């Protein structure tokens, strides 16, 4: 389905289109949330709310301001960050790292997850320490680039170029796998 059709179908509140959206994007969007909110139940709750929000706010989506996936991923990311920063989670004192994430993926039982989880390590493996650090904080802990810059005293320009470099490596690895 073309993106234009997909959006038109969502705006028309069509059930089939919504199911298509779910099938195509739920895994990726859930990944965006799970990277930030580590607790599976809370992550699913955030995902539920985000997905419902996406379908209900589709009229607010403006094609001229970016592609659909970016818009959806930002909604999920922001909801996850809001959740993470709300008291509910910060009291439990959980923080995520790439290692936790990879470990978490691997330790889950069942073949489905094992197949799904293949690739995380391979995707990360060629990142150098600086890039890994950036991916960890921006992708996995939900920091903004200016927060990383301030907290770790790294110039903003350097953060930007490391984000770029890291995503370029991911791009290459994604294409390879």
């Amino acid at each position, binding site marked *: 389905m073309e993106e234009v059709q997909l959006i038109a179908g969502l705006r028309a509140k069509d059930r089939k289109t919504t199911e298509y959206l779910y099938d195509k994007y739920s895994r990726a969007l859930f990944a965006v949330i799970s990277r930030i909110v580590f607790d599976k139940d809370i992550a699913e709750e955030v995902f539920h709310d985000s997905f419902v929000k996406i379908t209900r706010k589709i009229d607010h989506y403006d094609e001229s301001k970016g592609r659909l996936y970016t818009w959806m991923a930002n909604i999920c990311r922001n909801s996850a960050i809001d959740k993470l920063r709300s008291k509910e989670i910060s009291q439990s004192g959980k923080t995520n790292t790439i290692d936790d994430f990879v470990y978490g993926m691997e330790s889950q039982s069942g073949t489905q997850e094992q197949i*799904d*989880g293949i690739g995380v390590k391979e995707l990360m493996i060629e990142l150098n320490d600086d890039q890994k650090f950036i991916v960890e904080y921006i992708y996995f802990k939900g920091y903004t680039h200016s927060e990383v810059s301030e907290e770790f005293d790294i110039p903003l320009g350097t953060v930007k170029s490391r984000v770029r470099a890291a995503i370029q490596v991911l791009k290459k690895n994604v294409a390879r796998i």
Partner: protein
Amino acid sequence: MDIQSYISSGKLELFLLGELTEREREEVLSLAMMHPEIQRELDELEETMFSFDNMTGVAPSQEVKDKIFSTLENDFILKEAPKPTTAPTDTKVVPIASPWKPFAIAASIAAIVASGAAFYYADKYQERNDQFTALLQDQSVMADNLNQVKQDFEEADSRLDKFVAGDFKRIEMKGEGFDMQKDARVDVLWDQNAQEVFIAVNNLNELSDDLDYQLWAIGDDGPVGIGLVNSGEKLTLQQMEAVAQAGAFAITIEPKGGSKSPTLEKLVVLGEVA
């Protein structure tokens, strides 16, 4: 602008991560609209982020899916047409000896009519859908155009503000007294307080590629070059370099790129400040 260095600045990644301010977002969007390379890079980066997310993620559980769709249940708008035959027969108690044939025939006819209608409407729907898609595309083209017009308008508007608010003096430079181009005419608009100079070319001959028209402000310290004149842009305003003091303005023909001091033999027009 240098597109490659813009692409590698890291701004596009931050755009996708939703970390830019509204103004920076607008900038990325309008540059992407103008430069296909930037749009292509954005599309590729988005594709990468999606693949990365998709590959590293696990599917959410079936319970969440069920819960989401039951939350959304009342939002969906049903498009299915009501079935014409079922409702009346279900409620009525049919006598055992009822003649079933006429009903069967009626039902068959109804079914044929209904499926004919279904095909007809499916076709119509597809047609409308295509039209709708085409309209969406038209609309985005129009939005682009509107943006462009808006920019042009804002530029023109800010110039107009300048002219209304400023104290511009008009100096007519004419070619009558010289041998080069008798009918040449260029006007200088000069706001002495703001030191701003604009010119409007009324009539100037085209030059060969190795020559340029150069504007001079002639003050107490002699002539100062204040920019090259585009002879092709007739009757639009061209902004020149700032001038605080001048008794006259003149244009000469100089080698491409202009000279340090004017070639007086090739003086084309001259106008004195009244």
